């Protein structure tokens, strides 16, 4: 904590010019750098997604060739996973708000923080470089399954190198947050006085730190096989393709919780604020994040029930998978109970948070379906899985991200957006999302495999419905973005605490000063969400 001076300039005004941004050590500016880059890649990913949906509007070849389609879905996956959703909430809102919520002036290692953004940029350049260098972007799917990824002539090497570099960005962010949470909490703030978003980031950071190195090594093994011909995964030269799948999912399943836990953290912030009461079951929510992070390490095998697994490993992985549902459902019940006897203000962020719960329920419950061995044999690698994880990723994490953006927008820029337009955009996105992804669940039950460029006539109608959904959703996204852009340019000045929140970020100015606080923030008595105006039960 610094900031004894009466009035510091806002972090936006303190210096000007491009270099003051791209070499900044201020966690808030780094958060915004991430927002602009991550947000741009989200839009690129959306465009690729729309191209796929257009191609699938009718069976047969329509707008692109089969090979292009395969490259498009691979690039869509790589961008959405590695460049958007993994960094999204931690790197944007974590960077911006974790230090403020802890009552400190920056993360523990500001230079490493800047370096992780630069690594992100380098990784992104590698990922996009495949468009220019080599024989085109990878056509393997984002999973890079061997031995196809070893044999194909497309530029897999550069793509895995991109993911490798991005992994370091993720590891460094995790490391930074763990040390920040341990060492830089405001005086008097114990672990159990931290806001739940910090808890979620804490759990996430451990996964980033401990799981990401495994994907790094695995991707290097792919490179070693492609470039040096070392037989690791391709049986034609003595390798084992199942080994690759294990190594890949040992990271990539925990990575699902890198994507989901911070989203749950945002929802745990939004719901008490707009209910104006304390969160129900603070400790249950905080510790269930750690529980999910821990159990999440031991369930990777559920991606491989049909790819060659003994009976005992199958049932053990299936059983462990079901245990993840328990801490997750506890969180949902806690959020629901937080609405009980609240004094609820139906604002835009709350709508996104509640829609998160609805979408995440569909995503999570369909996850239970594919976690069950028998059902998974039928549904694995079908559109059911595509629908399932898009409900979790976009309907869940994406909605939490957009909700967080609307929640903290007035704090980040000191401006307020048009709430009516924001609500309209929310409604369109929510409807579009469900029309886009729900038909995929049905297509999967009907047996349509995923990563299909062309399909049989019986799948036609639902594919058309899904494509129409993508148009609706994109319309909503455009309205949302334009609304926020206008607000950023000439929105009304926002008060310091527009939502009457009590976590520490609402005690400082909007936008915050360079070192976050002009005067020492006061911790709420009796827990971070103990609203003084609410009755006590």
């Amino acid at each position: 904590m610094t900031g004894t001076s009466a009035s510091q300039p806002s972090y936006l005004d303190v210096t000007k010019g491009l270099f003051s941004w791209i070499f900044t050590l201020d966690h808030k500016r780094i958060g915004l750098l991430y927002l602009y880059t991550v947000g741009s890649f989200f839009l690129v990913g959306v465009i690729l997604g729309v191209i796929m949906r257009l191609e699938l509007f009718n069976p047969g070849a329509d707008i692109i060739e089969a090979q292009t389609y395969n490259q498009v879905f691979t690039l869509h996956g790589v961008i959405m996973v590695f460049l958007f959703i993994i960094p999204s909430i931690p790197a944007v809102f974590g960077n911006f708000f974790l230090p403020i919520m802890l009552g400190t002036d920056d993360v523990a290692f500001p230079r490493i923080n800047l370096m992780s953004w630069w690594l992100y940029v380098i990784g992104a350049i590698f990922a996009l470089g495949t468009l220019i260098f080599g024989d085109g972007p990878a056509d393997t799917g984002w999973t890079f399954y061997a031995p196809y990824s070893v044999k194909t002539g497309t530029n897999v090497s550069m793509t895995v190198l991109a993911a490798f570099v991005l992994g370091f960005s993720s590891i460094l962010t995790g490391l930074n947050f763990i040390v920040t949470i341990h060492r830089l909490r405001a005086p008097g703030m114990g672990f159990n006085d931290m806001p739940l978003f910090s808890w979620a980031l804490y759990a996430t950071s451990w996964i980033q730190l401990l799981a990401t190195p495994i994907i790094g090594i695995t991707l290097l093994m792919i490179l070693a096989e492609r470039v040096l011909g070392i037989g690791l995964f391709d049986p034609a030269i003595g390798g084992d393709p199942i080994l690759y799948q294990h190594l890949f999912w040992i990271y990539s399943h925990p990575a699902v919780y890198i994507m989901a836990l911070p989203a749950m953290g945002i929802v745990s912030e939004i719901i008490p604020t707009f209910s104006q009461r304390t969160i129900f079951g603070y400790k249950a929510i905080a510790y269930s994040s750690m529980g999910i992070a821990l159990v999440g390490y031991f369930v990777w095998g559920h991606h491989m029930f049909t790819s060659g697994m003994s009976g005992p490993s199958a049932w053990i992985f299936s059983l462990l998978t079901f245990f993840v549902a328990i801490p997750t459902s506890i969180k949902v019940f806690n959020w629901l109970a937080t609405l009980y006897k609240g004094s609820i203000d139906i604002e835009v962020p709350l709508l996104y948070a509640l829609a998160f719960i609805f979408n995440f329920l569909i995503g999570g419950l369909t996850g239970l379906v594919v976690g069950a061995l028998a059902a998974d044999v039928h549904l694995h690698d079908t559109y059911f899985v595509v629908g399932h994880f898009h409900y979790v990723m976009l309907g869940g994490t994406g909605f939490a991200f957009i909700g967080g953006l609307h929640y903290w927008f007035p704090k980040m820029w000191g401006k307020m957006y048009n709430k009516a337009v924001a609500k309209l955009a929310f409604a369109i996105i929510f409807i579009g999302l469900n029309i886009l992804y729900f038909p995929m669940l049905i297509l999967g039950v009907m047996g349509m495999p995923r990563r299909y460029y062309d399909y049989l006539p019986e799948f036609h109608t639902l594919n058309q419905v899904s494509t129409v959904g993508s148009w609706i959703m994109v319309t909503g996204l455009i309205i949302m973005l334009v609304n926020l852009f206008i607000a950023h340019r000439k929105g009304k000045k926002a008060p310091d605490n527009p939502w009457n929140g009590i976590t520490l970020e609402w005690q400082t100015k909007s936008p915050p000063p360079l070192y976050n606080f002009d005067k020492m923030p006061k911790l709420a008595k009796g827990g971070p969400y103990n609203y003084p105006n609410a009755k006590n039960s």
Partner: protein
Amino acid sequence: MNASNFVEGVDLSLYVILGISVFFLIAITFVMIYFLFKYRKKNNPVATNIPHNTLLEIVWTVIPTILVLIMFWYGWIGYKPMLTAPSDAMEIEAVGQMWKWTFKYPDGKVSDSLVIPIDKPVKLNLKSIDVLHSLYIPAFRIKRDVVPGQDFMMWFTGQKLGTYDIFCAEYCGQLHSYMLSSCTVVSEDDYNNWLTSGPNLSNEHPGLTLLKTNACLSCHSRDGSRIIGPSFKGLIGRQEVIIRDGNREEIIVDEEYIAGKIKNPNTSEVETYQAGLMASYGDILSDDDIKNIIDYISTL
């Protein structure tokens, strides 16, 4: 009657989980919307802080635990019988390669679609020549990855006459979505007739038959058009630029070159084509087969 013996177990697990899920989805959404209106600011201006309630928390931990154990159980009992095929099952070899399924029957019959007798357990021994594939029969609720270098199997009993789609469910490259076949369940008599009907006795060149059964034509056209690899049309005697050990060489394609490429496809590559996708056919095709193929190619 269900299409296969596994439909019941798979669908049961699906319905049990979907049933519980739909109940919770509706119940939670309803409660959420109810609270939203009941406790909105206008109706409830002062909130109440309720930090927790131990009894309630125990209840909503124990009930989901029991429910997920039930879901797990139905998943496991539907899956367990898939692991071991009955000893009297009829064995058929199912070969996946880019982008074709081939079914080899014990008495030597080879077919690109699966025909099986009704009510008889069938065990498919799964082989892949190149990359991962996954044999998926949605109507039978059954799927198994076909992994190169591994001897996996799947089994099922067709219980209803009819023809059912076979898909490749594991992404395997450019024409993945065209790697289709079918499984036809027929009566015992029809099956025996089909089995003894013998190979198609047309005037087809044996080399062409080999090109078809080994999926060569997935990548190499017969009419000069470019697919994945160079066309067979006019191949012998054609001047090509190849890359061998990083060096550009001009060669005239001859019979020896073609035979060498069939056995070791990735030692060199024709310029502008991708290396690495083709598997070696040295162990699959005999020297006579290769001779027949070259003889056929020379007619194009």
